[in-house]
């Protein structure tokens, strides 16, 4: 009777990617925002070639987080505006499939923006950001706040304050992810020995897992009526 879980998840992912390919709304607004943010940071912090590498990883992460907030709001407002969430809830699918479907979509968009930033920042700041560990941390960090972001955005788009509420409720909750990701990337960029910072990557993995489980358990309560 029920649609298989994975089929439901990938139908939703496929639909989100299809819409994005058609409209390019999310990636273009997120990408443009990210680019502007980097430029503004360079002016504000006077980040030149001699800039401290700590500042670079901070700029990278703050930019990715704010760009994802932008994307998360759009992606879930789309489900609310025409009542499409109802349409998905009507279908004989596991409700958590909606969570995973939206999560994977949001993660892909955030990663696209993150990976777009790497070459741009490499050129602008003259540091090679294409390091395997940095990309791994980028993946883990983006995953962490896409997880809490998907849950919280599903919640905030249903409220009166809507878009303005998401950054307020999401930032503090995403802090552990951000903290671990920034510390790890800073260390990677300053070429510190792996033993010094591998703990941050481990913390990141643990926090990701905890958030995934908690959000998985709580999601059902965010969409019922």
């Amino acid at each position, binding site marked *: *009777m*029920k*649609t298989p879980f994975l089929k439901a998840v990938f139908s939703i992912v496929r639909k989100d990617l299809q819409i994005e390919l058609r*409209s390019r709304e999310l990636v273009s607004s997120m990408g443009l925002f990210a680019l502007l943010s980097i430029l503004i940071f360079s002016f504000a912090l006077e980040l030149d070639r001699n800039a401290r590498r700590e500042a670079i990883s901070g700029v990278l992460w703050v930019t990715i987080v704010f760009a994802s907030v932008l994307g998360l709001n759009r992606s879930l407002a789309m489900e609310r505006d025409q009542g499409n969430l109802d*349409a998905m809830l009507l*279908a004989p699918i596991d409700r958590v499939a909606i969570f995973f479907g939206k999560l994977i979509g949001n993660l892909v968009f955030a990663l696209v923006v993150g990976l777009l930033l790497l070459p741009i920042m490499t050129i602008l700041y003259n540091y090679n950001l294409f390091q395997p560990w940095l990309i791994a941390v980028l993946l883990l960090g983006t995953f962490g706040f896409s997880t809490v972001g998907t849950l919280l955005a599903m919640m905030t788009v249903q409220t009166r304050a809507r878009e303005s509420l998401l950054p307020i409720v999401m930032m503090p909750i995403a802090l552990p992810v951000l903290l671990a990701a920034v510390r790890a990337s800073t260390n990677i960029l300053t070429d510190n020995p792996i033993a010094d910072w591998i703990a941050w990557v481990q913390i990141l993995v643990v926090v990701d897992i905890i958030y995934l489980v908690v959000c998985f358990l709580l999601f059902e309560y965010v969409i019922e*009526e």
Partner: protein
Amino acid sequence: MTQHSALSTQHSLIETRALVKAFGMLPVLRKLDLSIARGEFVALLGPNGSGKSTLLRLLAGLSKPTAGDILVGGWKLPQEAAPVRAQIGMVSHKVLLYENLNARENLRFFARLYNLPAAKADERITQLLDQVGLARRTHDPVRTFSRGMQQRLSIARALLHNPDILLLDEPYTGLDVDASAVLDNLLRDAHKGGRTIIMSTHELGRAAALASRVVILSRGVVGYDAPTAGLDGLRLSAIYTETTSMASAR
């Protein structure tokens, strides 16, 4: 649980017992009892706020009751919603479509969610698009559609998985005369095809002409309930006024 086959062998397909739904302290449905047999076409009437939409959302499993029971085909909602969902099609006043996808892509997405085999789904989509008169607009994004066309596509979406039960929440809102006539025909066909239909509407004449039974909700309970045989729009409107004004006098 497993002895039920799909949605069959029940003399009343849909049943609510002492159904209560409250939003906070505000009760919308107050111990509503209603029983609907297979193949009936029920027109759900009542003023705004009488609980029509709330009842339809409850029957669709989109909302949880505060108290009371809902049985659909012997399954209890919301606990056993999964097997029921596959047998329900719903048209709400929101169109439930993705405006950046075209008509066929929208229907394909929902066909996947309902686990229809791809080849069969495509065939069914072509047939449905033809039936709702959108065959020539298949490849246009939904945002370029008029309200009437979006509503027709929305009905195609609701019929996609060939559901036994069709729930319609004010489907005539925002439709012009032509689109309304198309919808009339679609509903007549669906009813003839043996589907059970529950439709909320404010159009009394349509209700009398199309439906097999009229239920008027007032203040969260059934105020009037009778077959439409022998009723016309005029007579029904007299009954409607009487039922709803009686309730507000109370």
